[in-house]
């Protein structure tokens, strides 16, 4: 029987003890003495949130296919257990073996959102690993970061030995081989890190040194050793259908946020929305082949016993064989009482037909993401969706029996005016009017409910808007209040509902998104002051963060309120994602002119990623089409 790291008494005291005991279906157990490398894979948030993450499942499966590697999982202990572990000096442990993280060779941390940064420090701290990479010794695991936030790793660079820039399937094998070989040779930590810097896609922060201008902007960013390349190139999978896929997903006992099989149908997005980081850093679009998808769906369903499967991609409607895929899955699933969930489908006659078959029309709602209230601003952000598209989709949906519609918007986009903001309630009102015009009273099967929600725009690295300025917190709230007033003035105000995201968190996200190495001490100070689980609204404490900025002498406005000049050197410019800065700047200029850029399927716009010669790019080495 597995021995648990926590005593009966503690497990009986904490909320949801199932978070800490492991032992789930398909969790991988190995003999710790018969592997050469132990990898603790951490999602720095609570188990229920991190459990279903697809990236984690893919790498867990891939690592554990190696007989010489045992990959286990680690999550952030919730504050109740966090307190007990500090009091009783219990070291943080991995779920499978329940062994202390400190005994592992690697601690890998997936960075999915900026607001998890204090949790990263919690995980290091509870593990007994020095927070700063510079203070670590031969006795500490190698701490490696991966995931979306590594496209600007600088605010947390101090805390990591390595970052993996790009898609996990590509160079982990080389990294592990190198580690195992050097460990057997008795090489030092320092030697290993230097050697690892030579692997494509691996960034070793300690081997680079930034220098700054007097105004605080970056002057130079130089490698300190010959092994460290001046530019770290993102690695990506050229042919997804050949890549490993978790056919034995771990099935948690307690209901996680993602209680289903996730089927990743493609990577990348053809659309090129100018605010969207994912749309740039995951280029080019690479599809999995239809037959391959049907096979992995079938196996993952059989092996997990899940009763739901969900398609995953940035824009599923753009998958070239979406109709046969969905039809095939419906056939496969209907006999076994398995549900299909179809997020990110564009609303058209095909998707409505499918959705009416797989979900309860009366209960479900339809989602549109126009992002901006006017066509002018939608052109600025290059969002292809027009008002005509929305109204046509909404009309079809109303006739199909749907009465609940959701709209997603952003406030604070570059060039935004009051007219654009008031366009938000106006657009929602026109959708409501359409309902009353289209559907005769006797055919209405419920009250129309339109919910609009807006987030405040945060400019992200490697997007055409990386030069943009943000606003002050007060300005965001003022704008949101005026939009809310706009909703109150609409004819069908009672059918319209508007909500907006938190402004404090937005500003902090803005600092982290485009921050440099100076920000790391603020994160460390905020953690010392007690900030943790900042992604949880009820746990977020803005006063402590403000205090941390003051005490560290770091001005958040420097990162958020400046519109950057065209020639500014950015902290993330040493990363080469394939898309060129020239292309991004050209897109910025087109945005300012309100000119849209065609999507990748209509025309190649020369973003630079063509040099990877794969996916949808015209440069791809074409093979027989499936």
């Amino acid at each position, binding site marked *: 029987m597995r021995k648990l790291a926590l005593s009966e008494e503690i497990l009986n005291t904490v909320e949801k003890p*199932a978070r800490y005991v492991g032992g789930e279906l398909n969790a991988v157990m190995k003999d710790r003495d018969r592997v050469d490398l132990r990898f603790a894979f951490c999602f720095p948030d609570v188990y229920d949130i991190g459990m279903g993450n697809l990236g984690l499942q893919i790498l867990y499966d891939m690592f554990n296919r190696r007989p010489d590697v045992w990959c286990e999982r680690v999550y952030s202990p919730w504050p109740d257990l966090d307190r007990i572990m500090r009091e009783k000096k219990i070291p943080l442990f991995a779920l499978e073996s329940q062994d202390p993280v400190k005994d592992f060779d690697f601690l890998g941390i997936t960075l999915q959102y900026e607001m998890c940064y204090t949790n990263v420090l919690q995980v290091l701290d509870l593990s007994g690993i020095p927070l700063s990479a510079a203070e670590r010794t031969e006795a500490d695991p190698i701490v490696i970061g991966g995931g979306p936030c590594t496209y600007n790793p600088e605010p947390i660079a101090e805390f990591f030995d390595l970052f993996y820039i790009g898609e996990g399937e590509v160079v982990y094998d080389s990294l592990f081989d190198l580690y195992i070989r050097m460990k057997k040779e008795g090489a030092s930590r320092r030697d290993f890190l230097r050697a690892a810097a030579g692997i494509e896609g691996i960034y070793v922060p300690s081997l680079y040194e930034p220098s700054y201008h007097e105004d605080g902007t970056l002057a130079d960013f130089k490698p300190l050793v010959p092994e460290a390349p001046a530019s770290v190139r993102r690695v990506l999978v050229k042919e997804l259908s050949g890549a490993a896929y978790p056919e034995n997903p771990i099935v948690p006992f307690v209901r996680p946020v993602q209680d289903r099989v996730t089927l990743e149908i493609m990577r990348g997005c053809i659309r090129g929305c100018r605010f969207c980081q994912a749309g740039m850093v995951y280029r080019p679009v690479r599809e999995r082949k239809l037959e391959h998808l049907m096979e992995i769906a079938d196996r993952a369903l059989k092996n997990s016993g899940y*009763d739901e499967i969900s398609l995953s991609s940035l824009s599923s409607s753009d998958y070239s064989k979406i109709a046969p895929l969905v039809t095939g899955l419906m056939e496969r699933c209907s006999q076994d009482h398995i549900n299909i969930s179809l997020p990110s489908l564009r609303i058209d006659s095909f998707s409505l037909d499918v959705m009416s078959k797989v979900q309860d029309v009366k209960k479900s709602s339809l989602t549109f993401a126009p992002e901006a209230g006017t066509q002018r601003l939608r052109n600025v952000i290059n969002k292809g969706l027009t008002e005509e598209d929305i109204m046509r989709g909404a009309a079809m949906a109303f006739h199909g029996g749907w009465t609940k519609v959701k709209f997603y918007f952003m406030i604070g986009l570059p060039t935004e005016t009051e007219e654009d903001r008031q366009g938000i309630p106006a657009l929602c009102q026109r959708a409501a009017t359409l309902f009353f015009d289209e559907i005769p009273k006797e055919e209405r099967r419920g009250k129309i409910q339109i919910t609009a929600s807006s987030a405040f725009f945060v400019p992200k690295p490697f997007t055409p808007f990386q030069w943009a300025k943000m606003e002050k917190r007060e300005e965001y709230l003022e704008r949101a209040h005026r939009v809310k007033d706009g909703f109150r003035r609409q004819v069908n105000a009672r059918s319209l509902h508007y909500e907006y995201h938190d402004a404090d968190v937005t500003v902090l996200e803005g600092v982290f998104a485009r921050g440099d190495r100076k920000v790391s001490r603020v994160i460390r100070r905020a953690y010392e002051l007690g900030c943790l689980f900042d992604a949880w609204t009820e746990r977020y404490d803005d006063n402590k963060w403000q205090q941390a900025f003051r005490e560290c002498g770091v001005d958040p406005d420097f990162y958020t309120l400046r519109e950057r000049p065209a020639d500014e050197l950015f902290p993330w410019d040493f990363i080469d994602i394939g898309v060129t800065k020239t292309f991004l700047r050209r897109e910025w200029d087109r945005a300012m002119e309100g000119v849209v850029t065609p999507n990748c399927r209509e025309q190649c716009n020369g973003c630079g990623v063509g040099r990877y010669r794969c996916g949808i790019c015209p440069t791809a080495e074409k093979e027989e089409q499936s």
Partner: protein
Amino acid sequence: MIIRVKFGKEGALRFIGHLDVLRTFQKIFRRAGIPMAYSQGFSPHPLMSFALPLGLGLSSEGEYLDAEIEETDPAQLLPRLRAATSADLPVYAVRILPDGTGNAMASVGRASYRLEIRPEWADMLRRGAERLLARESIPIEKETKTRTVEMDLRPCLYEMKILPAPAKSEGGEKPALYLEIAAGSKANVKPELVWTELLRAAGGPEDLKPCAVRRLDLMREDGTSLGTAGTEAQ
């Protein structure tokens, strides 16, 4: 066909609530390729029910669930379920129930438990058990979700005795208190409640806690195990 599955809860599973265990079993049936029967209506759900929820933190070697399934080769049931489950949720037996067998939940009348204790408590607890069993009635107050009710504990006590520590070779070092007490819809008492009364009768310290609590089996009111219903699936 309706089957009764006997299973246990060990290790990690002790901290999984019974609704989550039910959901897990639905996944195990799918993994095992055993087609479940579904309820009729707008949102069909698999027809599956537990005999009696087990408190969080308790281990067990005597849990039961009844499930209605599509016709399946009976000899395949146990091996397939065993292959599909995890070590902490062992499946011990599958029985096929004849039509008209009352469901597991309605059948439960008693439950037996093993409460591990320290050797030095054995005499004190034995004394307490003798005193309790000698009384004609044991009026107690029992907390329910909404209110406190008065009840007589005595008819709920079928058996209480001290078991010696098993041989070291069998992994045990501690003696235990064996309890057989009322359970189910008519009268239901938890082992913790009996433990408290036992300490009171023995004059022992109030804050004493058993080292571990394990459910051994569920029985009908007449004392026969729920695991004897129907016929073995083979």
